[in-house]
């Protein structure tokens, strides 16, 4: 970003007229500072302007026209992970989620980014929301590993000399196999057992999710079917808009939201389920996001009301399928977009504790983000790395045999920092393994558990 030329006009808001942060929402903040210890960037830097209170203060100054929309302000907003941990600590009920979502598009519109930044972000948004392109890129990734190019580049120190952002992208590449990439998710799976509710459930396959975590989708479908749901997986190959919305690319995000609603409306569904926390929080916001659109307003609200995270749905459904014991110590990592944005904390733990012999371990600093946060670990690699290391240390200290978390981004970020020694799964994969009575880890998926 670079400096804008217009000097600020005190008294006149520096924001443009399209949905600036609302005055009453800014006034809700009483500057008490209770949010500070929950904010990952504040925990790392100790800087006031890197805290929710500091960011709201700057938004307030911009709304009063005392500071311009410029790079100095924008960089503070860019560095916010959007984890919303602050909203859980705020006694005054400040709706930081609404504030940050109002300010990000303002900056995208009004503060030009540097050519490099623009190019890097454009590249991300031309890749990640497009499963087809992502699959192709992942294929390149497989070759990159398999042909020893990765090892060679690391040995030669080439990776070390890359800009931090490219280094982050390289390091986040998950170890997918060709089999994963070629896996096709079925579009319709009937219920495996008759359930009183007999729900028709649509699964959002996700974009990065379906490319990198096809096994999580497969497990989700099996569990839903075992619990008596008829499962539909619409296949239009498009992103729900979460990545765009979280980065302030409002128009793009809204268009994707409309297309997602259209896509699911083609099936007559009771529930739309997602197994990615970041997608889920956006699906649940469709109603608010499209409130200005007369064609979609009501449909979006209905869609949001139908949306559930997989753990949320499983906690609501009376369990049908028998759970076989899984004698494992599991560290459950709260994904911010599940715990803070959707306030879903107890359900995944309940769902896991329903598995006989499984122990759920508490971890220190559970409320602090792992640094993934959508595309954050790609665009703000330094802070993300520090948070990733911090999270890995807390997880290690809990001495888990397996780590479970319900978000694709967290899975990638934690895998990068925790190393190879502790397996990482989505909670639904443990439920799936328990129902099927198999060992949950991928490399031994076929192995029966000793007690069966």
């Amino acid at each position, binding site marked *: 970003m670079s400096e804008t030329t217009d000097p600020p006009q005190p008294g006149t808001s520096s924001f443009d007229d399209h949905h600036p942060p609302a005055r009453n929402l800014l*006034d809700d903040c*009483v500057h008490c*500072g*209770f949010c500070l210890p929950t904010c990952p960037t504040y925990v790392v830097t100790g*800087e*006031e302007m890197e805290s929710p209170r500091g960011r709201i*203060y700057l938004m307030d100054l911009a709304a009063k026209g005392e*500071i311009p929309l410029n790079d100095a302000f924008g960089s503070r907003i860019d560095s916010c992970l959007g984890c919303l941990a602050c909203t859980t600590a705020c006694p*005054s*009920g400040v709706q930081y989620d609404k504030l940050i979502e109002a300010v990000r598009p303002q900056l995208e519109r009004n503060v030009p980014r540097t050519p490099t930044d623009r190019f890097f972000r454009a590249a991300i948004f031309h890749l990640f929301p497009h499963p087809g392109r992502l699959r192709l890129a992942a294929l390149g990734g497989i070759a990159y590993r398999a042909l020893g190019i990765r090892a060679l580049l690391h040995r030669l120190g080439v990776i070390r000399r890359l800009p931090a952002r490219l280094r982050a992208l390289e390091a986040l590449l998950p170890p997918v196999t060709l089999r994963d990439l070629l896996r096709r998710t079925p579009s319709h799976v009937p219920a495996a057992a008759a359930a009183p509710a007999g729900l028709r459930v649509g699964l959002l396959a996700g974009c990065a999710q379906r490319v990198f975590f096809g096994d999580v989708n497969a497990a989700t479908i099996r569990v839903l079917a075992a619990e008596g749901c008829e499962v539909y997986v619409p296949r239009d190959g498009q992103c729900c808009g979460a990545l765009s919305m979280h980065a302030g690319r409002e128009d793009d995000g809204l268009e994707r939201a409309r297309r997602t609603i259209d896509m699911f409306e083609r099936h007559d569904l009771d529930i739309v389920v997602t197994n990615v926390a970041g997608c889920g929080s956006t699906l649940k916001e469709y109603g608010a996001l499209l409130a200005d659109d007369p064609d979609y307003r009501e449909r979006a609200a209905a869609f949001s009301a139908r949306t559930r995270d997989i753990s949320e749905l499983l906690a609501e459904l009376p369990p049908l399928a028998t759970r076989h014991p899984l004698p494992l110590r599991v560290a459950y990592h709260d994904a911010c977009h599940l715990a803070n944005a959707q306030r879903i904390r107890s359900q995944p733990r309940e769902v896991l504790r329903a598995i006989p012999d499984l122990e759920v371990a508490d971890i220190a600093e559970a409320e602090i983000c792992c640094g993934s946060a959508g595309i954050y670990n790609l665009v703000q690699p330094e802070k993300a790395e520090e948070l990733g290391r911090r999270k890995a240390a807390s997880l290690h200290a809990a001495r888990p045999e397996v780590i479970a978390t319900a978000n694709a981004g967290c899975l990638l970020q934690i895998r990068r920092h925790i190393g190879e020694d502790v397996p990482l799964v989505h909670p639904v994969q443990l439920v799936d393994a328990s129902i099927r009575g198999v060992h949950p880890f991928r490399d031994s998926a076929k192995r029966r558990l000793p007690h069966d």
Partner: protein
Amino acid sequence: MLTTTTITEFEEVLGTEAVVTDPVALRSYECDGLTGYRVTPALVLLPSTAEEVAACVSVCAREDIPFVARGAGTGLSGGALPVAQGVVISVQRLRRVLSIDPDNRRAVVEPGVTNADISRAAAPYGLYFAPDPSSGQVCTIGGNVAENSGGAHCLKYGFTVHHIHAVDVVLPDGTLTRLGSHAPHQAGYDLLGAFIGSEGTLGIAVRIEVRLLPRPAAWRTLVADFDSLEAAGDTVTDIIAAGIVPAAIEMMDSLSIEAVEAAVAAGYHRDARAALIVELDGPHQEVASQFAEIQRLCRDHGCTHLRVAADADERAVIWKGRKAAFAAVGRISPDYLVQDGVVPRTRLAEALTRIARLADAAGLRVANVFHAGDGNLHPLVLYSEAAGQHDRAEHLSTSIAELCVELGGSLSGEHGIGTDKACSMPRQFDADSLATMRRLRTAFDPHDLCNPGKVLPTPRLCGERPGPYQPHPLETAGVIERM
């Protein structure tokens, strides 16, 4: 004076990344928890070690640059208000718990560690840090030392001053020295006693050796509702008269209860005129017998509902409600001022009646939430900035503080004098007392560089006209502004 050469010198000491010069970022430091006073600092420094703090202060002393230490910026008296042309020295990168000595029940911590973090670090040894200001999750021990902070449980356990063995301080000339020791009684002048509560005017605490206490064997907590503040106040008097020293006795009036319920739904009854929160801690048997006695006293005074916390979770919810009270008032009023004063416990009811009368006369609402056991009031003056009520609210708030003095109490119970009440100091202290304080301050800080303008009134700060609110001279000069 601060010049580009000095800035370069700071950057050489700390690294460029720890020196904030960006004008937008600097603005986020212009106030602490009291937003009515704002001054943008010229520079913010973020040292990471005690030695770096000393190096920064040495440069300030040599170059005659005023400096203000800042912790989490949660203070409610403007104690961390920056000085124009001065620097803010933030201790937010000194956040390590350096050592814990469980046998001697001591811990050494850096000033940026929060109260909650000390207790968290001590928990594995069955120990905790007793002072518990409501902002204990976020406020720093450095700030606690500066303000001699209290909290709900200081009725039984005392203030910060009772829980500090020694402090390594950077004096205003840059000297790094130690005040106090862990000997129970110290020869010579009690410099540690002078330093604790000096509101950042005698130096910067950089390492603090705190006293830890064993966690009590048992807790019992109740909430008793009453039809009137008087009945609740009389109950408090009788509990103390019975020789019981509860860990805490807190009172909230109906407005505070309404705010708390809107914010955290802690299960307080909105129809109660007053609610008492009483907590006992200690050995099982003692707690059980005294708890029964307290319930009897509550009933004797006509309590309308008695809620006894069934378990640790319910206790936590009750306290969460009480501790969120200040910020929660934001739910029922667009703007408010937090006041902090002390009255003799026996005159609580009288104080509340007179506060209500002052509020009526001003046409404003006042919510009361306070540490009833030691007469520490926190009246919250509710007003609307947009409706132009600010001046009236400010005046009412000051009148309440001065009423406390008139009733034989004090201008501040725990929030400090800071910027906010410096001008009221002559109400409580005569000229000789103030001159003695000034001599002490000058002995530490002869050039008035260390948090200048706080605690003691100055003609420049207070103007020459006492009485009702007048525009502040700094305000008129455009140096500070009020919300």
